[in-house]
């Protein structure tokens, strides 16, 4: 069943219960006044009244509890409205009394009883609605113990409903004690008036008015019901004084109203302090949030200035930020000229604190301010703004009265400036992180571009089979290999290594690619090729960079391999006839080392006749110079051994064996250098 249906049903049945009570009660009275034996037991209206109270209780409990996000004043407003409606109804009956003449109607005991029952019902409504609202107020910022205590109180109250109708007469003797217990519990619960503190000044006034009106309703109804019940001496009517639930409720509601009223009244003068504290918290929050939302440091500075000024009620303020010896001023109600005058006075009086790196505390500088001629200000505090242990600025707050800043304010300003420092630090870290992220993206692009510079699959020219393997220590590297068909029977092959690693090496490597792709088409002699490459590179390589390379021309008609070495690691060559491999020891010099016409004299051309199953192994120093944990280098001998051992296999298998052995030696796949292997086997 939905809550709506329950409230409607409980309201409907409450009305039925009341009507039933009124009818039965009047019947009893009528029988009694006419000296007839009543056909209905005197207990029936009493029980009906209790049922009515219970239904009311359920109705208001659900209605008030379901009201989410309702503020305290709205809750009190509900009590006020309920009270107003009931009072109007009650007054309506009083008006009839006055109009017809009280003395005449007083004779009719039945009518008197009816008015009494009506007022009793109205009183019950006011009490139960108050009770439900107070429950919400008391349980604001509840603790577990408080909830338990409240439930106990509520349960005992509900027991009070049936207390007087229980068929145990001896209970009546204890009803007073029962009431005292409930009264004390109510008193204890009434101490929970925390909600008052959360009202602002205006709301507190409203609260006082509404609570006072509730008190008025309560007193009015209790008075009305009491004078009415005085009319029925010796008549067996529904006496509210016998209903423990009702009496306990009256006591509790009365106590809580009085307490609330007093607390509200006494809290009025201090509410501004509370409001100020709330504003401080708000400002503080604003400052710390500014880092997430604001796009610039300037905004953080603005917020710091605004927040500080509004929290300590400063008449003027300035904020100076020193960024790379460039001082920026943010001011409030003060001109930069005045700020400079104050600063001069502070400096000439040797007051540390303004633009002084060593100062790290908020300081009160009223005394010095007196020495500033013609200044309208009488109070001054300054606070440093520190980012990463470095003072980047100063916050100064001014007042036109003397001793304008107390200890509390000093503390707040200090907290604010600290928070601003943290915000700016965070902001800078965030910017740096974003920048780094951008660089990473750029590097990823560079990596993609570079990997496209190395040939994806090396063409198999029919006369030989070739595989390559290349890895970089960083995203991009400086190792290079490439091939190009010069004509039908000859092709060019190069392996290169740029000095250094990373981005600069990658740039030079791409230059090398350009040189190879354009110059090798010309079918130049290897040493001429290197000379021209050296000339080209001399103009663009920076002073301390060089490139090592070995350039080959494979002629499948003559079965010759012609090559020149430009300072690159000696080529390993497996001679299938001898069944052993060896390094070519040839003269050469790195590209870019000698930047004049003399270079060609330092490189020689070598020629080898190749035979089927001969193997050419090209590599970069990343292989031979890689170290294991002991600091030993992979070295030339190990490379030669692994090639000799696997010489019968296909280039792919040789490469795999070599890489496997290489990683086994280094103990890791993360080599701190670029490394490349190219294996070419003749058919």
């Amino acid at each position: 069943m939905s809550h709506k249906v329950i409230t409607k049903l409980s309201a409907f049945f409450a009305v039925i219960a009341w009507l039933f009570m009124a009818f039965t009660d009047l019947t009893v009275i009528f029988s009694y006044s006419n000296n007839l034996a009543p056909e209905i037991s005197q207990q029936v209206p009493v029980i009906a009244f209790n049922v009515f109270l219970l239904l009311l209780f359920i109705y208001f409990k659900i209605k008030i509890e379901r009201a989410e996000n309702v503020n305290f004043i709205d809750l009190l407003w509900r009590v006020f409205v309920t009270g107003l409606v009931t009072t109007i109804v009650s007054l309506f009956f009083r008006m009839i009394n006055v109009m017809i003449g009280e003395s005449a109607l007083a004779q009719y005991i039945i009518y008197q009883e009816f008015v009494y029952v009506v007022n009793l019902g109205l009183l019950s409504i006011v009490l139960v609605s108050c009770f439900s609202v107070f429950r919400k107020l008391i349980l604001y910022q509840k603790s577990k113990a408080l909830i338990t205590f409240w439930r106990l109180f509520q349960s005992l109250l509900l027991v009070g409903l049936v207390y007087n109708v229980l068929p145990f007469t001896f209970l009546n003797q204890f009803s007073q004690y029962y009431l005292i217990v409930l009264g004390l519990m109510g008193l204890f619960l009434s101490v929970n008036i925390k909600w008052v503190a959360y009202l602002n000044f205006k709301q507190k006034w409203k609260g006082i008015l509404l609570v006072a009106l509730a008190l008025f309703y309560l007193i009015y109804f209790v008075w009305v019901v009491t004078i009415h019940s005085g009319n029925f001496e010796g008549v067996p009517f529904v006496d509210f004084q016998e209903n423990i639930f009702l009496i306990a409720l009256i006591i509790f509601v009365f106590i809580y109203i009085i307490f609330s009223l007093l607390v509200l009244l006494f809290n009025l003068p201090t509410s501004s302090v509370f409001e100020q504290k709330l504003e401080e918290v708000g400002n503080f929050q604003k400052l710390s949030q500014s880092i997430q939302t604001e796009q610039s440091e300037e905004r953080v500075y603005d917020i710091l200035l605004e927040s500080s000024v509004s929290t300590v009620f400063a008449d003027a303020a300035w904020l100076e930020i020193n960024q790379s010896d460039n001082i920026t001023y943010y001011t409030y109600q003060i001109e930069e000229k005045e700020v400079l005058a104050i600063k001069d006075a502070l400096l000439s009086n040797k007051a540390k604190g303004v633009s002084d790196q060593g100062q790290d505390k908020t300081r009160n500088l009223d005394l010095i301010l007196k020495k500033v001629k013609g200044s309208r200000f009488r109070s001054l505090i300054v606070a440093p703004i520190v980012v990463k242990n470095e003072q980047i600025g100063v916050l100064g707050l001014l007042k036109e009265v003397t001793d304008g800043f107390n200890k509390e304010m000093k503390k707040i300003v200090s907290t604010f400036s600290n928070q601003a420092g943290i915000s700016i630090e965070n902001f800078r870290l965030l910017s740096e992180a974003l920048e780094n992220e951008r660089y990473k993206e750029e590097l990823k692009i560079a990596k993609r571009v570079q990997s496209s510079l190395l040939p994806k699959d090396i063409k198999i020219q029919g006369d030989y089979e070739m595989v390559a393997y290349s890895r970089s220590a960083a995203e991009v590297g400086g190792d290079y290999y490439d091939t190009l068909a010069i004509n039908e029977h000859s092709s060019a092959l190069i392996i290169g290594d740029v000095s250094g690693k990373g981005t600069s090496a990658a740039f030079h490597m791409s230059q090398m690619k350009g040189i190879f792709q354009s110059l090798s088409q010309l079918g130049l002699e290897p040493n001429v090729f290197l000379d021209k490459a050296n000339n080209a590179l001399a103009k663009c390589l920076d002073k301390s960079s060089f490139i090592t390379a070995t350039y080959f021309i494979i002629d499948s008609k003559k079965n010759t391999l012609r090559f020149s070495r430009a300072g690159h690691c000696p080529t390993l060559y497996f001679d299938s006839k001898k069944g052993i491999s060896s390094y070519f020891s040839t003269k050469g010099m790195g590209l870019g080392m000698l930047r004049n016409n003399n270079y060609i004299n330092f490189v020689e051309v070598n020629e080898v006749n190749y035979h089927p199953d001969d193997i050419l192994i090209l590599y970069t120093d990343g292989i031979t110079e890689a170290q294991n944990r002991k600091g030993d280098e992979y070295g030339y001998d190990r490379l030669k051994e692994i090639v000799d051992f696997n010489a019968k296999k296909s280039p792919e298998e040789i490469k795999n064996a070599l890489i496997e052995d290489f990683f086994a030696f280094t103990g890791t796949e993360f080599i701190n250098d670029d490394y490349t292997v190219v294996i070419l086997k003749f058919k």
Partner: protein
Amino acid sequence: MVDIQKINQNGITIVVVIGEVDASSSIDLDSAMNETIASGALKIIVDCENLDYISSAGLGVFMSYIEEIKANNAKMIITGLNEKVFNVFKILGLDQLLETADTRDQAIELLK
């Protein structure tokens, strides 16, 4: 990490390089060399007896001052290269551009 010391001895500037020269510490080597050459030293010895490792970037530093030394009519001798480093020198062809000696005394003798 590299430690570079400079000694002046009878008109000869001796640059002593100790430790390892990699891409990042080559900057220190470069500034030491630049200082020495800019100061107008005509006789320079680079003592690499305690140089354990030098990367290609470090070698590039020596290489980059060859032209300038020649233009100044100065002379630079690198001494005490260990076998591994000297091998790299030879492979690169730097031994054809830079004068080397086994010991400091030999170098001093050559510069007389």
